[in-house]
């Protein structure tokens, strides 16, 4: 199952990240995970939040270029090699990972946020391999 990630374009300027977070705070959006991909000039902020549509709307209304992207949140057991097994499964199916970052939700498992090509097929492969992904409903109550 896929969930929606909020992506925000920000130019590297002091205080810009804080402005994004302020908008989310003012609108009671809870951030579960955050990743910042950056070059010397730009940052791409990727967020997993409890209410992605609302987050996107309030950011747009505040003048930030933001969008929703479908990603996978894959549960990874706290055992050595668990992540490797999952990635191996995807690699063997010729699915490439565009980016990934961690998500921590105080349960017995860790999770990773993964953006791949062919998301639908990636889901099927994970399901077949009995690897759990998180649903939007699970995210919403966090």
């Amino acid at each position, binding site marked *: 199952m896929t969930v929606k*990630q909020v*992506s925000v*374009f*920000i*130019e590297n*300027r002091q205080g*810009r990240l804080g402005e994004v977070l302020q908008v989310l705070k003012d609108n009671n959006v809870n951030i579960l995970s955050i990743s910042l*991909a*950056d*070059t010397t*000039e*730009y940052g*791409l902020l*990727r967020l997993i939040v409890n209410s992605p549509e609302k987050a996107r709307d309030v950011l*747009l209304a505040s*003048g*930030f*270029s*933001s*969008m929703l*992207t479908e990603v996978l949140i894959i549960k990874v057991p706290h055992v050595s090699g668990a992540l490797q097994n999952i990635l191996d499964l995807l690699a063997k199916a010729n699915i490439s990972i*565009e*980016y990934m970052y961690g998500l921590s939700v105080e349960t017995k498992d860790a999770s990773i946020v993964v*953006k791949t090509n062919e998301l639908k097929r990636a889901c099927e492969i994970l399901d077949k391999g009995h690897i759990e992904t998180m649903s939007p409903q699970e995210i919403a109550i966090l």
Partner: protein
Amino acid sequence: MIWNKEAECMSQDEKTALQSKRLVELVKYVYENVEFYRKRMDEYGIKPSDIKGIEDIDKLPYTTKDDLRDTYPFGLFAAPHSDIVRIHASSGTTGKATVVGYTQYDIDVWAECVARCMSMAGVTKDDIVQVAYGYGLFTGGLGAHYGAEKIGAMVVPMSTGNSKKLTTMMVDFGATAIACTPSYLLHLSEVLRDEGMLDKIKLKAAICGAEPWTEKMRSEIEQRLNISAHDIYGLSEIMGPGVACDCQYHEGLHICDDHFYPEIIDAKTLKPVKDGELGELVFTTLTKQGIPLIRYRTKDLTSITREKCKCGRTSARISRFKGRSDDMLIIRGVNVFPSQVEAALVEVKEVTPHYMMIVDRDNNLDTLEIQVEVDKDYYTDEIRGIESLQRKIAQVIQGALGISARIKLVGPNTLKRSEGKAVHVIDNRKLY
């Protein structure tokens, strides 16, 4: 040395008589050969016979760059295409270039004028002249080239873009003069210094133009290279480089006013101002055949004196330029209008037409950064998406301006919105 004493030192009376005769012929010539001028003069109710001498010039309407754009490409040509032997072009205010054409006679006059200018800088047939302006549609390279050849100097057509080769040849050939933009010459002086070649050069004069510069820059160039640096002025609409240049006394630029009649006007009221007062420079091309222009507004701000110079020349002189009456920028010798950037950005749907141009000088070379706001509805969640957008804009801008620019994307609504007239340019170069 004075190249053409007869023309450059003639008495005021002789000159007025010559300018009058030429103006009368010119007005008749354009009325008969250029539909645009015929219509415009008819609109103003002026017949060629109303113009009896140079004192009648203010009866004639002005010509602007917009008129050239509206008649693109050849609408203002007076000579038949079979008589045109050369085309040059410069930036227009929007997508279309400003195109000019020359007959063989025009090319000869041009070479004559550049020869006069280079002679002011002391260039003779014994000199080796490196021409480091761009060759091509830009008038700089070929204009300087033909003038130096006319003098009989040994011309090295370097064009632009290879400083290392230029400095090597400067030393190996023993070049004694160079024609290039002043900022590029400052840059070259640093290359020479860094390579430890400063004491190996034989340079004695530089003919610098195509961009505004200051007295401070001149003394810096002269000191660094131990040469005499001269300011050559021109614009493609009128001819190209060689319309005016300063002599060894550097007290203003001598205009070749037997070919180009200068006026200074108030840019707002369009009325002539007195000699010595600041205003916009206007030229009438008294002898041009290809694309003669009547009272062409250069938008360059300067003042004029008609007093005889210590050098013996009687030609009218203009002071160093004090700015522009429009928003044109000259970046790396290329004319750039902010409106060109705006027109180019409209084609890129991912960005808004809000932009800011930041012009600066790094290591004596002009730099241009254009900050562009991404559209609120533009989205990518990958760095490579942003980078490809940046490249796409850079290509569009390069195509529109003819020079490269560093593109910086900024978030929606982050560029300052000005009240009233929009400010699109920050120029940190202090050129005037």
